[in-house]
Protein backbone atom coordinates (compact mmCIF):
# COMPACT_ATOMS: atom_id res chain seq x y z
CA UNK A 1 0.00 0.00 0.00
CA UNK A 2 1.30 3.40 -0.88
CA UNK A 3 2.31 5.94 1.68
CA UNK A 4 -0.18 8.37 0.22
CA UNK A 5 -3.73 7.68 1.32
CA UNK A 6 -5.22 10.19 -1.07
CA UNK A 7 -3.94 12.07 -4.08
CA UNK A 8 -5.76 14.78 -6.00
CA UNK A 9 -4.19 15.12 -9.43
CA UNK A 10 -4.85 18.32 -11.37
CA UNK A 11 -8.43 18.56 -10.19
CA UNK A 12 -10.45 21.19 -12.00
CA UNK A 13 -14.07 21.73 -11.08
CA UNK A 14 -16.19 24.10 -13.13
CA UNK A 15 -19.80 25.06 -12.48
CA UNK A 16 -20.89 26.65 -15.73
CA UNK A 17 -18.54 29.56 -16.16
CA UNK A 18 -17.28 29.51 -12.60
CA UNK A 19 -14.08 27.67 -11.88
CA UNK A 20 -14.34 26.49 -8.29
CA UNK A 21 -11.11 24.49 -8.36
CA UNK A 22 -8.27 25.07 -10.77
CA UNK A 23 -5.64 22.37 -11.28
CA UNK A 24 -5.48 21.46 -7.62
CA UNK A 25 -2.90 18.90 -6.56
CA UNK A 26 -3.02 17.61 -3.04
CA UNK A 27 -1.51 14.65 -1.26
CA UNK A 28 -2.69 13.25 2.07
CA UNK A 29 -0.16 10.99 3.74
CA UNK A 30 -1.06 8.05 5.90
CA UNK A 31 -1.46 8.89 9.56
CA UNK A 32 -1.23 12.65 9.31
CA UNK A 33 -3.55 15.53 10.05
CA UNK A 34 -3.63 17.76 7.01
CA UNK A 35 -5.44 21.08 7.38
CA UNK A 36 -7.02 22.67 4.35
CA UNK A 37 -7.43 26.39 4.86
CA UNK A 38 -8.36 29.38 2.79
CA UNK A 39 -10.67 32.38 2.75
CA UNK A 40 -14.42 31.91 2.36
CA UNK A 41 -15.30 30.67 -1.11
CA UNK A 42 -11.81 29.37 -1.78
CA UNK A 43 -13.18 25.94 -2.72
CA UNK A 44 -12.43 23.94 0.41
CA UNK A 45 -15.81 22.24 0.70
CA UNK A 46 -15.76 21.67 -3.07
CA UNK A 47 -12.61 19.61 -2.52
CA UNK A 48 -14.52 17.49 0.00
CA UNK A 49 -17.43 17.12 -2.40
CA UNK A 50 -15.10 16.00 -5.18
CA UNK A 51 -13.38 13.48 -2.92
CA UNK A 52 -16.62 11.97 -1.62
CA UNK A 53 -18.20 11.70 -5.05
CA UNK A 54 -20.85 14.40 -4.59
CA UNK A 55 -19.32 16.20 -7.58
CA UNK A 56 -17.55 14.64 -10.52
CA UNK A 57 -14.53 16.81 -11.31
CA UNK A 58 -14.44 18.48 -14.72
CA UNK A 59 -10.95 17.11 -15.17
CA UNK A 60 -8.27 15.50 -13.08
CA UNK A 61 -8.13 12.36 -10.99
CA UNK A 62 -8.74 11.39 -7.39
CA UNK A 63 -6.62 8.44 -6.32
CA UNK A 64 -7.47 6.77 -3.02
CA UNK A 65 -5.05 4.06 -1.87
CA UNK A 66 -3.74 3.62 -5.37
CA UNK A 67 -7.20 3.39 -6.97
CA UNK A 68 -9.00 6.06 -8.95
CA UNK A 69 -12.36 6.85 -7.37
CA UNK A 70 -13.63 9.42 -9.84
CA UNK A 71 -17.11 8.46 -11.01
CA UNK A 72 -17.63 5.89 -8.27
CA UNK A 73 -20.93 5.94 -6.43
CA UNK A 74 -20.95 7.81 -3.15
CA UNK A 75 -21.79 4.83 -0.97
CA UNK A 76 -19.01 2.82 -2.61
CA UNK A 77 -16.49 5.56 -1.85
CA UNK A 78 -17.63 5.47 1.78
CA UNK A 79 -17.25 1.69 1.80
CA UNK A 80 -13.73 2.03 0.43
CA UNK A 81 -12.90 4.12 3.47
CA UNK A 82 -13.65 7.83 3.17
CA UNK A 83 -16.06 9.38 5.64
CA UNK A 84 -16.94 12.99 6.25
CA UNK A 85 -18.77 15.45 8.41
CA UNK A 86 -20.65 18.50 7.18
CA UNK A 87 -20.10 22.20 7.54
CA UNK A 88 -23.78 22.75 8.25
CA UNK A 89 -24.60 19.83 10.54
CA UNK A 90 -26.57 17.12 8.74
CA UNK A 91 -27.52 14.51 11.29
CA UNK A 92 -30.52 12.21 11.07
CA UNK A 93 -32.44 14.45 13.45
CA UNK A 94 -35.41 12.14 14.01
CA UNK A 95 -33.18 9.21 14.94
CA UNK A 96 -31.51 8.78 18.29
CA UNK A 97 -27.84 9.61 18.64
CA UNK A 98 -27.07 5.91 18.97
CA UNK A 99 -28.99 5.06 15.81
CA UNK A 100 -27.13 7.76 13.92
CA UNK A 101 -23.85 6.11 14.77
CA UNK A 102 -25.09 2.55 14.19
CA UNK A 103 -26.26 3.67 10.72
CA UNK A 104 -22.65 4.54 9.98
CA UNK A 105 -21.41 1.26 11.47
CA UNK A 106 -23.79 -0.69 9.22
CA UNK A 107 -21.62 0.08 6.19
CA UNK A 108 -19.54 -3.05 6.43
CA UNK A 109 -22.35 -5.40 7.48
CA UNK A 110 -23.17 -8.18 5.07
CA UNK A 111 -26.74 -8.74 6.25
CA UNK A 112 -29.39 -7.51 3.86
CA UNK A 113 -33.14 -7.19 4.07
CA UNK A 114 -33.89 -10.92 3.96
CA UNK A 115 -31.32 -11.78 6.62
CA UNK A 116 -32.78 -9.12 8.88
CA UNK A 117 -36.33 -10.43 8.50
CA UNK A 118 -35.33 -13.95 9.45
CA UNK A 119 -32.83 -12.87 12.08
CA UNK A 120 -30.03 -15.09 10.84
CA UNK A 121 -27.15 -15.69 13.26
CA UNK A 122 -24.99 -13.38 11.14
CA UNK A 123 -27.59 -10.64 11.33
CA UNK A 124 -27.76 -10.91 15.12
CA UNK A 125 -23.98 -10.96 15.40
CA UNK A 126 -23.59 -7.90 13.18
CA UNK A 127 -26.37 -6.01 14.93
CA UNK A 128 -24.70 -6.61 18.27
CA UNK A 129 -21.22 -5.74 17.01
CA UNK A 130 -22.41 -2.51 15.35
CA UNK A 131 -24.31 -1.50 18.46
CA UNK A 132 -21.29 -2.08 20.65
CA UNK A 133 -19.03 -0.20 18.26
CA UNK A 134 -21.46 2.72 18.20
CA UNK A 135 -21.56 2.86 21.99
CA UNK A 136 -17.77 2.80 22.10
CA UNK A 137 -17.57 5.69 19.66
CA UNK A 138 -20.15 7.72 21.57
CA UNK A 139 -18.06 7.12 24.64
CA UNK A 140 -14.89 8.11 22.74
CA UNK A 141 -16.52 11.40 21.70
CA UNK A 142 -17.74 11.97 25.25
CA UNK A 143 -21.45 11.89 24.41
CA UNK A 144 -22.45 8.43 25.56
CA UNK A 145 -25.01 9.88 27.93
CA UNK A 146 -26.86 11.31 24.89
CA UNK A 147 -27.32 7.89 23.27
CA UNK A 148 -31.09 7.81 23.66
CA UNK A 149 -31.79 11.39 22.65
CA UNK A 150 -32.85 12.49 19.21
CA UNK A 151 -30.15 13.96 17.01
CA UNK A 152 -32.04 17.21 16.55
CA UNK A 153 -32.43 17.73 20.30
CA UNK A 154 -28.74 17.44 21.14
CA UNK A 155 -26.90 20.60 22.14
CA UNK A 156 -25.00 22.16 19.27
CA UNK A 157 -21.56 21.00 20.33
CA UNK A 158 -22.75 17.45 20.87
CA UNK A 159 -24.30 17.45 17.39
CA UNK A 160 -20.87 18.22 15.95
CA UNK A 161 -19.31 15.49 18.08
CA UNK A 162 -22.05 13.08 17.01
CA UNK A 163 -21.27 13.78 13.35
CA UNK A 164 -17.66 12.82 13.96
CA UNK A 165 -18.74 9.66 15.79
CA UNK A 166 -21.07 8.74 12.89
CA UNK A 167 -18.27 9.26 10.36
CA UNK A 168 -15.81 7.22 12.47
CA UNK A 169 -18.35 4.41 12.68
CA UNK A 170 -17.84 3.69 8.98
CA UNK A 171 -14.24 2.82 9.95
CA UNK A 172 -12.66 5.19 7.44
CA UNK A 173 -9.08 5.17 6.26
CA UNK A 174 -9.50 8.89 5.67
CA UNK A 175 -11.69 11.14 7.78
CA UNK A 176 -12.79 14.47 6.32
CA UNK A 177 -13.82 17.07 8.89
CA UNK A 178 -15.53 20.16 7.52
CA UNK A 179 -15.17 22.98 10.04
CA UNK A 180 -15.68 20.81 13.11
CA UNK A 181 -15.00 23.69 15.47
CA UNK A 182 -17.45 26.16 13.93
CA UNK A 183 -19.33 27.88 16.73
CA UNK A 184 -17.16 26.41 19.50
CA UNK A 185 -15.83 28.50 22.36
CA UNK A 186 -12.05 28.52 23.05
CA UNK A 187 -12.24 25.81 25.70
CA UNK A 188 -14.28 23.55 23.41
CA UNK A 189 -11.79 24.16 20.60
CA UNK A 190 -8.94 23.00 22.80
CA UNK A 191 -10.91 19.86 23.70
CA UNK A 192 -11.70 19.25 20.03
CA UNK A 193 -8.04 19.59 19.08
CA UNK A 194 -7.25 16.89 21.63
CA UNK A 195 -9.98 14.68 20.19
CA UNK A 196 -8.67 15.11 16.64
CA UNK A 197 -5.19 14.16 17.80
CA UNK A 198 -6.65 11.13 19.58
CA UNK A 199 -8.38 10.16 16.34
CA UNK A 200 -5.10 10.43 14.45
CA UNK A 201 -3.28 8.43 17.14
CA UNK A 202 -5.96 5.72 16.86
CA UNK A 203 -4.69 5.17 13.30
CA UNK A 204 -6.97 7.37 11.20
CA UNK A 205 -5.79 9.88 8.64
CA UNK A 206 -7.52 13.24 8.92
CA UNK A 207 -8.15 15.97 6.36
CA UNK A 208 -9.47 19.00 8.16
CA UNK A 209 -11.09 22.20 6.94
CA UNK A 210 -10.90 24.91 9.55
CA UNK A 211 -10.81 28.65 9.95
CA UNK A 212 -9.51 28.89 13.44
CA UNK A 213 -5.74 29.44 13.13
CA UNK A 214 -4.87 28.53 16.70
CA UNK A 215 -6.63 25.19 16.30
CA UNK A 216 -4.90 24.52 12.99
CA UNK A 217 -1.47 25.43 14.27
CA UNK A 218 -2.11 23.25 17.31
CA UNK A 219 -3.17 20.04 15.58
CA UNK A 220 -2.00 19.91 11.97
CA UNK A 221 1.04 18.10 10.74
CA UNK A 222 0.78 19.92 7.46
CA UNK A 223 -1.27 22.77 5.99
CA UNK A 224 -2.49 23.37 2.45
CA UNK A 225 -3.89 26.74 1.46
CA UNK A 226 -6.52 27.34 -1.20
CA UNK A 227 -7.39 30.74 -2.63
CA UNK A 228 -9.90 31.26 -5.43
CA UNK A 229 -9.75 27.58 -6.29
CA UNK A 230 -5.99 27.43 -6.61
CA UNK A 231 -3.59 25.88 -4.16
CA UNK A 232 -1.18 28.63 -3.18
CA UNK A 233 0.82 26.93 -0.45
CA UNK A 234 1.44 23.51 1.04
CA UNK A 235 3.85 22.67 3.83
CA UNK A 236 4.50 22.66 7.53
CA UNK A 237 2.65 25.13 9.71
CA UNK A 238 5.62 27.48 10.05
CA UNK A 239 6.35 27.44 6.33
CA UNK A 240 2.77 28.30 5.50
CA UNK A 241 2.57 30.95 8.20
CA UNK A 242 5.50 32.84 6.68
CA UNK A 243 4.48 32.37 3.05
CA UNK A 244 3.90 35.84 1.57
CA UNK A 245 1.16 34.55 -0.74
CA UNK A 246 -0.78 33.15 2.21
CA UNK A 247 -0.45 36.39 4.10
CA UNK A 248 -1.65 38.22 1.02
CA UNK A 249 -4.65 35.94 0.58
CA UNK A 250 -5.70 36.41 4.18
CA UNK A 251 -4.73 40.01 4.82
CA UNK A 252 -4.69 41.49 1.33
CA UNK A 253 -1.73 42.74 -0.67
CA UNK A 254 0.44 45.48 0.84
CA UNK A 255 -0.67 48.92 -0.41
CA UNK A 256 2.65 49.72 -2.10
CA UNK A 257 2.60 46.55 -4.16
CA UNK A 258 -0.39 47.54 -6.27
Amino acid at each position, binding site marked *: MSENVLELKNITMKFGGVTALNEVNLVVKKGEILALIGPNGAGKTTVFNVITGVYKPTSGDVVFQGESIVGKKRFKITKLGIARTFQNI*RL*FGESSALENVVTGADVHSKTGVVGSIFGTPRSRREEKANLERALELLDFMGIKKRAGQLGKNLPYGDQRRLEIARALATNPKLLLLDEPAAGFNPAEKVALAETIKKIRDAGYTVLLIEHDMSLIMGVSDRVAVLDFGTKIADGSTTEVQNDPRVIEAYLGAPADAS
Partner: protein
Amino acid sequence: MANLKSSLNLRDKGAEYWERSPKWRRVALAIFFIAICYALPFLNNPLVNTPGSDFQSVLFYPVGMYVLMAIGLNIVVGKSGLLDLGYVAFFAIGAYTMAILGTKTSLNFWEILPIGVGLAMLSGVLLGTPTLRLRGDYLAIVTLGFGEIVRIFAVNTDAIGGSRGIAGIPTPPDVFNAKFTILDPKPYYWMLLTFTLLIIWMVRRMAARRPGRAWDAIRQDDDVAQLMGINTRKYKVWAFVLGAAVAGVGGVVYASQILSIVPDQFNLNISILILACVVFGGIGNVWGVILGAVLLAFTPERIRFLSQPRILVFGIALVVMMNLRPDGILPKKKREHFDPDWHTVEESGEGEIK
Protein backbone atom coordinates in the same frame (compact mmCIF):
# COMPACT_ATOMS: atom_id res chain seq x y z
CA MET B 1 -48.75 22.14 31.90
CA ALA B 2 -46.05 20.02 30.41
CA ASN B 3 -46.66 17.50 33.17
CA LEU B 4 -50.38 17.45 32.54
CA LYS B 5 -49.77 16.97 28.85
CA SER B 6 -47.32 14.14 29.35
CA SER B 7 -49.61 12.41 31.80
CA LEU B 8 -52.35 12.51 29.17
CA ASN B 9 -50.11 11.03 26.51
CA LEU B 10 -51.51 7.52 26.42
CA ARG B 11 -49.23 6.43 23.58
CA ASP B 12 -46.10 7.12 25.60
CA LYS B 13 -47.67 5.60 28.71
CA GLY B 14 -48.49 2.47 26.77
CA ALA B 15 -45.03 2.19 25.28
CA GLU B 16 -43.42 2.72 28.68
CA TYR B 17 -45.63 0.09 30.26
CA TRP B 18 -44.61 -2.29 27.48
CA GLU B 19 -40.93 -1.52 27.96
CA ARG B 20 -41.12 -2.00 31.71
CA SER B 21 -43.01 -5.27 31.38
CA PRO B 22 -41.17 -8.53 31.83
CA LYS B 23 -41.17 -10.93 28.92
CA TRP B 24 -43.97 -13.16 30.26
CA ARG B 25 -46.29 -10.18 30.53
CA ARG B 26 -45.49 -9.06 27.00
CA VAL B 27 -46.24 -12.53 25.69
CA ALA B 28 -49.45 -12.72 27.70
CA LEU B 29 -50.61 -9.33 26.46
CA ALA B 30 -49.78 -10.19 22.87
CA ILE B 31 -51.64 -13.50 23.06
CA PHE B 32 -54.60 -11.74 24.67
CA PHE B 33 -54.88 -9.14 21.89
CA ILE B 34 -54.33 -11.68 19.14
CA ALA B 35 -57.07 -13.86 20.64
CA ILE B 36 -59.43 -10.88 20.66
CA CYS B 37 -58.65 -10.24 17.00
CA TYR B 38 -59.43 -13.85 16.10
CA ALA B 39 -62.67 -13.73 18.11
CA LEU B 40 -63.90 -10.51 16.51
CA PRO B 41 -66.29 -12.19 14.02
CA PHE B 42 -68.32 -13.53 16.96
CA LEU B 43 -68.74 -10.08 18.42
CA ASN B 44 -72.33 -8.97 18.33
CA ASN B 45 -72.39 -5.62 19.99
CA PRO B 46 -74.85 -2.93 18.84
CA LEU B 47 -72.10 -0.31 19.20
CA VAL B 48 -69.76 -1.87 16.67
CA ASN B 49 -72.01 -3.89 14.40
CA THR B 50 -72.70 -2.58 10.97
CA PRO B 51 -76.36 -2.02 10.15
CA GLY B 52 -76.79 -2.29 6.41
CA SER B 53 -73.97 -4.74 5.84
CA ASP B 54 -72.81 -8.03 7.25
CA PHE B 55 -70.38 -7.41 10.11
CA GLN B 56 -68.31 -10.52 9.40
CA SER B 57 -67.93 -9.52 5.75
CA VAL B 58 -66.96 -5.99 6.74
CA LEU B 59 -64.23 -7.42 8.95
CA PHE B 60 -62.70 -9.11 5.92
CA TYR B 61 -63.29 -6.36 3.43
CA PRO B 62 -62.72 -3.51 3.86
CA VAL B 63 -61.35 -3.59 7.43
CA GLY B 64 -58.87 -6.49 7.29
CA MET B 65 -57.84 -5.79 3.74
CA TYR B 66 -57.23 -2.09 4.42
CA VAL B 67 -55.17 -2.91 7.50
CA LEU B 68 -53.00 -5.31 5.50
CA MET B 69 -52.50 -2.90 2.62
CA ALA B 70 -51.88 0.07 4.91
CA ILE B 71 -49.12 -1.90 6.66
CA GLY B 72 -47.60 -2.62 3.26
CA LEU B 73 -47.86 0.95 2.03
CA ASN B 74 -46.41 2.13 5.33
CA ILE B 75 -43.13 0.42 4.45
CA VAL B 76 -42.96 2.54 1.31
CA VAL B 77 -44.41 5.85 2.47
CA GLY B 78 -43.84 5.76 6.20
CA LYS B 79 -40.49 4.03 6.59
CA SER B 80 -38.65 5.14 3.48
CA GLY B 81 -40.56 8.33 2.66
CA LEU B 82 -41.42 7.42 -0.94
CA LEU B 83 -44.81 8.75 -1.94
CA ASP B 84 -46.55 5.97 -3.88
CA LEU B 85 -49.93 6.91 -5.36
CA GLY B 86 -50.30 3.77 -7.46
CA TYR B 87 -50.25 1.18 -4.72
CA VAL B 88 -53.50 -0.41 -5.93
CA ALA B 89 -51.61 -1.71 -8.98
CA PHE B 90 -49.83 -4.35 -6.89
CA PHE B 91 -53.14 -5.33 -5.30
CA ALA B 92 -54.59 -5.69 -8.81
CA ILE B 93 -51.66 -7.80 -9.98
CA GLY B 94 -52.15 -10.17 -7.04
CA ALA B 95 -55.89 -10.38 -7.67
CA TYR B 96 -55.50 -10.95 -11.41
CA THR B 97 -52.88 -13.64 -10.85
CA MET B 98 -55.35 -15.49 -8.64
CA ALA B 99 -58.17 -14.96 -11.12
CA ILE B 100 -56.28 -16.01 -14.26
CA LEU B 101 -54.41 -18.97 -12.81
CA GLY B 102 -57.41 -20.03 -10.73
CA THR B 103 -59.76 -20.17 -13.70
CA LYS B 104 -57.36 -21.35 -16.42
CA THR B 105 -55.15 -23.83 -14.61
CA SER B 106 -55.70 -26.45 -11.96
CA LEU B 107 -53.43 -24.70 -9.45
CA ASN B 108 -55.11 -24.09 -6.12
CA PHE B 109 -55.01 -21.01 -3.92
CA TRP B 110 -51.95 -22.05 -1.91
CA GLU B 111 -49.98 -22.69 -5.07
CA ILE B 112 -51.05 -19.42 -6.67
CA LEU B 113 -50.32 -17.31 -3.59
CA PRO B 114 -46.52 -17.38 -3.94
CA ILE B 115 -46.82 -16.81 -7.70
CA GLY B 116 -49.06 -13.78 -7.14
CA VAL B 117 -46.74 -12.37 -4.50
CA GLY B 118 -43.75 -13.04 -6.73
CA LEU B 119 -45.35 -11.27 -9.69
CA ALA B 120 -46.28 -8.30 -7.51
CA MET B 121 -42.68 -8.13 -6.27
CA LEU B 122 -41.35 -8.41 -9.81
CA SER B 123 -43.55 -5.54 -10.91
CA GLY B 124 -42.25 -3.63 -7.90
CA VAL B 125 -38.71 -4.14 -9.17
CA LEU B 126 -39.68 -3.20 -12.72
CA LEU B 127 -41.43 -0.04 -11.59
CA GLY B 128 -38.95 0.81 -8.87
CA THR B 129 -35.63 0.40 -10.63
CA PRO B 130 -36.07 3.14 -13.22
CA THR B 131 -38.35 5.47 -11.26
CA LEU B 132 -36.74 5.59 -7.84
CA ARG B 133 -34.17 8.04 -9.14
CA LEU B 134 -37.01 10.51 -8.87
CA ARG B 135 -37.84 12.14 -5.59
CA GLY B 136 -40.92 13.48 -3.89
CA ASP B 137 -43.64 14.82 -6.13
CA TYR B 138 -42.11 13.44 -9.30
CA LEU B 139 -42.14 9.92 -7.95
CA ALA B 140 -45.76 10.39 -6.83
CA ILE B 141 -46.81 11.33 -10.39
CA VAL B 142 -45.04 8.34 -11.96
CA THR B 143 -46.58 5.88 -9.49
CA LEU B 144 -49.98 7.48 -10.03
CA GLY B 145 -49.51 6.79 -13.73
CA PHE B 146 -48.47 3.19 -13.06
CA GLY B 147 -51.60 2.55 -11.02
CA GLU B 148 -53.79 3.80 -13.84
CA ILE B 149 -51.81 1.95 -16.54
CA VAL B 150 -52.41 -1.40 -14.84
CA ARG B 151 -56.15 -0.77 -14.55
CA ILE B 152 -56.51 0.52 -18.13
CA PHE B 153 -54.42 -2.36 -19.43
CA ALA B 154 -56.83 -4.76 -17.75
CA VAL B 155 -59.86 -2.94 -19.19
CA ASN B 156 -58.47 -3.11 -22.72
CA THR B 157 -57.13 -6.66 -22.75
CA ASP B 158 -59.81 -9.10 -23.82
CA ALA B 159 -57.66 -12.10 -22.96
CA ILE B 160 -58.15 -11.29 -19.28
CA GLY B 161 -61.81 -10.41 -19.59
CA GLY B 162 -61.54 -6.75 -20.54
CA SER B 163 -63.92 -4.51 -18.65
CA ARG B 164 -66.10 -7.50 -17.73
CA GLY B 165 -63.28 -8.91 -15.66
CA ILE B 166 -62.99 -12.54 -14.63
CA ALA B 167 -65.69 -14.58 -12.92
CA GLY B 168 -65.74 -17.98 -11.29
CA ILE B 169 -62.51 -17.68 -9.33
CA PRO B 170 -62.13 -20.81 -7.18
CA THR B 171 -62.13 -20.58 -3.39
CA PRO B 172 -59.15 -21.90 -1.42
CA PRO B 173 -59.25 -25.56 -0.40
CA ASP B 174 -60.33 -26.32 3.15
CA VAL B 175 -57.82 -25.91 5.92
CA PHE B 176 -58.58 -28.26 8.84
CA ASN B 177 -62.26 -27.63 9.52
CA ALA B 178 -62.38 -24.15 8.02
CA LYS B 179 -64.36 -24.24 4.78
CA PHE B 180 -63.79 -21.36 2.40
CA THR B 181 -67.15 -20.55 0.83
CA ILE B 182 -68.78 -17.41 -0.46
CA LEU B 183 -71.34 -17.68 2.33
CA ASP B 184 -68.95 -17.59 5.25
CA PRO B 185 -66.40 -14.77 5.42
CA LYS B 186 -64.97 -15.93 8.78
CA PRO B 187 -62.25 -18.29 7.46
CA TYR B 188 -61.12 -15.59 5.05
CA TYR B 189 -60.90 -13.11 7.87
CA TRP B 190 -58.85 -15.52 9.97
CA MET B 191 -56.55 -16.24 7.07
CA LEU B 192 -56.07 -12.53 6.38
CA LEU B 193 -55.47 -11.89 10.07
CA THR B 194 -52.81 -14.61 10.15
CA PHE B 195 -51.02 -13.11 7.15
CA THR B 196 -51.29 -9.65 8.69
CA LEU B 197 -49.76 -10.78 12.00
CA LEU B 198 -46.95 -12.51 10.12
CA ILE B 199 -46.25 -9.34 8.13
CA ILE B 200 -46.32 -7.13 11.23
CA TRP B 201 -43.78 -9.43 12.84
CA MET B 202 -41.52 -9.24 9.78
CA VAL B 203 -41.86 -5.47 9.43
CA ARG B 204 -41.00 -4.91 13.07
CA ARG B 205 -37.88 -7.02 12.81
CA MET B 206 -36.75 -5.12 9.75
CA ALA B 207 -37.57 -1.77 11.31
CA ALA B 208 -35.42 -2.50 14.34
CA ARG B 209 -32.45 -3.64 12.29
CA ARG B 210 -30.24 -2.49 9.48
CA PRO B 211 -32.95 -1.99 6.82
CA GLY B 212 -35.00 0.12 9.23
CA ARG B 213 -32.05 2.38 9.96
CA ALA B 214 -31.24 2.65 6.25
CA TRP B 215 -34.85 3.65 5.48
CA ASP B 216 -34.86 6.14 8.35
CA ALA B 217 -31.68 7.68 6.95
CA ILE B 218 -33.00 7.79 3.38
CA ARG B 219 -36.25 9.39 4.50
CA GLN B 220 -34.48 12.06 6.49
CA ASP B 221 -31.64 12.96 4.15
CA ASP B 222 -31.04 10.98 0.98
CA ASP B 223 -27.69 12.62 0.18
CA VAL B 224 -26.22 12.07 3.62
CA ALA B 225 -27.52 8.49 3.62
CA GLN B 226 -25.46 7.83 0.49
CA LEU B 227 -22.42 9.48 2.03
CA MET B 228 -22.82 7.24 5.09
CA GLY B 229 -22.40 4.24 2.82
CA ILE B 230 -26.03 3.30 2.29
CA ASN B 231 -26.91 1.97 -1.15
CA THR B 232 -30.01 4.12 -1.31
CA ARG B 233 -31.23 2.77 -4.65
CA LYS B 234 -31.14 -0.78 -3.35
CA TYR B 235 -33.02 0.01 -0.14
CA LYS B 236 -35.63 2.08 -1.95
CA VAL B 237 -36.29 -0.73 -4.42
CA TRP B 238 -36.51 -3.14 -1.46
CA ALA B 239 -39.09 -0.92 0.21
CA PHE B 240 -41.09 -0.86 -3.02
CA VAL B 241 -40.81 -4.62 -3.48
CA LEU B 242 -41.83 -5.42 0.09
CA GLY B 243 -44.78 -3.03 -0.15
CA ALA B 244 -45.75 -4.70 -3.41
CA ALA B 245 -45.49 -8.17 -1.85
CA VAL B 246 -47.92 -7.23 0.91
CA ALA B 247 -50.41 -5.81 -1.59
CA GLY B 248 -49.92 -8.96 -3.68
CA VAL B 249 -50.95 -11.13 -0.72
CA GLY B 250 -54.00 -8.91 -0.28
CA GLY B 251 -54.90 -9.20 -3.96
CA VAL B 252 -54.72 -12.99 -4.09
CA VAL B 253 -56.79 -13.40 -0.92
CA TYR B 254 -59.32 -10.81 -2.06
CA ALA B 255 -59.85 -12.42 -5.46
CA SER B 256 -60.34 -15.84 -3.91
CA GLN B 257 -63.07 -14.48 -1.65
CA ILE B 258 -65.18 -12.33 -3.95
CA LEU B 259 -65.07 -14.89 -6.81
CA SER B 260 -65.22 -12.32 -9.60
CA ILE B 261 -63.17 -9.24 -10.25
CA VAL B 262 -63.50 -6.34 -12.67
CA PRO B 263 -60.78 -3.78 -13.45
CA ASP B 264 -62.72 -0.86 -12.05
CA GLN B 265 -62.47 -2.28 -8.54
CA PHE B 266 -58.78 -1.36 -8.70
CA ASN B 267 -59.19 2.36 -9.20
CA LEU B 268 -57.29 5.33 -7.88
CA ASN B 269 -59.67 5.65 -4.92
CA ILE B 270 -58.17 2.57 -3.32
CA SER B 271 -54.64 3.97 -3.56
CA ILE B 272 -55.77 7.26 -2.07
CA LEU B 273 -57.80 5.62 0.69
CA ILE B 274 -54.93 3.35 1.74
CA LEU B 275 -52.63 6.36 1.75
CA ALA B 276 -55.24 8.17 3.85
CA CYS B 277 -55.20 5.26 6.33
CA VAL B 278 -51.43 5.63 6.66
CA VAL B 279 -51.50 9.41 7.06
CA PHE B 280 -54.59 9.42 9.29
CA GLY B 281 -53.20 6.78 11.63
CA GLY B 282 -49.70 8.20 11.84
CA ILE B 283 -47.11 7.82 9.11
CA GLY B 284 -44.37 5.38 10.01
CA ASN B 285 -45.95 3.92 13.14
CA VAL B 286 -47.36 0.49 12.40
CA TRP B 287 -49.88 0.59 15.30
CA GLY B 288 -51.10 4.01 14.24
CA VAL B 289 -51.45 2.81 10.67
CA ILE B 290 -53.49 -0.19 11.79
CA LEU B 291 -55.76 2.00 13.90
CA GLY B 292 -56.14 4.44 11.02
CA ALA B 293 -57.04 1.67 8.60
CA VAL B 294 -59.58 0.15 11.00
CA LEU B 295 -61.27 3.51 11.54
CA LEU B 296 -61.23 4.55 7.90
CA ALA B 297 -62.53 1.20 6.69
CA PHE B 298 -65.04 0.67 9.45
CA THR B 299 -66.60 4.11 9.87
CA PRO B 300 -68.28 4.35 6.44
CA GLU B 301 -69.76 0.88 7.01
CA ARG B 302 -70.91 1.72 10.54
CA ILE B 303 -72.78 4.79 9.29
CA ARG B 304 -74.14 3.09 6.19
CA PHE B 305 -77.68 3.68 7.53
CA LEU B 306 -77.19 7.34 6.68
CA SER B 307 -77.17 6.21 3.03
CA GLN B 308 -76.25 9.07 0.70
CA PRO B 309 -74.86 11.64 3.18
CA ARG B 310 -72.57 9.08 4.83
CA ILE B 311 -69.54 9.91 2.69
CA LEU B 312 -70.06 13.59 3.52
CA VAL B 313 -70.19 12.78 7.24
CA PHE B 314 -67.11 10.62 6.82
CA GLY B 315 -65.29 13.44 5.04
CA ILE B 316 -66.15 15.94 7.74
CA ALA B 317 -64.96 13.52 10.42
CA LEU B 318 -61.67 13.15 8.54
CA VAL B 319 -61.13 16.89 8.24
CA VAL B 320 -61.90 17.43 11.92
CA MET B 321 -59.57 14.63 12.98
CA MET B 322 -56.70 15.83 10.87
CA ASN B 323 -57.07 19.29 12.36
CA LEU B 324 -57.07 17.94 15.89
CA ARG B 325 -54.16 15.58 15.32
CA PRO B 326 -52.24 16.73 12.26
CA ASP B 327 -49.57 14.04 12.69
CA GLY B 328 -52.14 11.26 12.80
CA ILE B 329 -53.82 9.47 15.66
CA LEU B 330 -50.71 7.66 16.85
CA PRO B 331 -47.83 9.56 15.28
CA LYS B 332 -44.38 8.10 14.88
CA LYS B 333 -42.50 10.19 17.33
CA LYS B 334 -39.51 8.52 18.82
CA ARG B 335 -39.51 8.81 22.53
CA GLU B 336 -36.31 10.09 24.00
CA HIS B 337 -34.34 8.33 26.65
CA PHE B 338 -32.33 10.40 29.08
CA ASP B 339 -30.99 7.47 31.04
CA PRO B 340 -27.22 7.56 30.56
CA ASP B 341 -27.09 3.78 30.45
CA TRP B 342 -29.72 3.40 27.77
CA HIS B 343 -28.71 0.77 25.21
CA THR B 344 -31.62 -0.07 22.95
CA VAL B 345 -31.89 0.87 19.31
CA GLU B 346 -35.61 0.19 19.05
CA GLU B 347 -38.15 -0.69 21.67
CA SER B 348 -39.15 -3.91 19.97
CA GLY B 349 -36.63 -5.80 22.05
CA GLU B 350 -34.76 -6.97 18.94
CA GLY B 351 -31.91 -4.56 19.34
CA GLU B 352 -31.12 -5.01 23.01
CA ILE B 353 -27.67 -6.08 23.99
CA LYS B 354 -27.86 -5.89 27.75
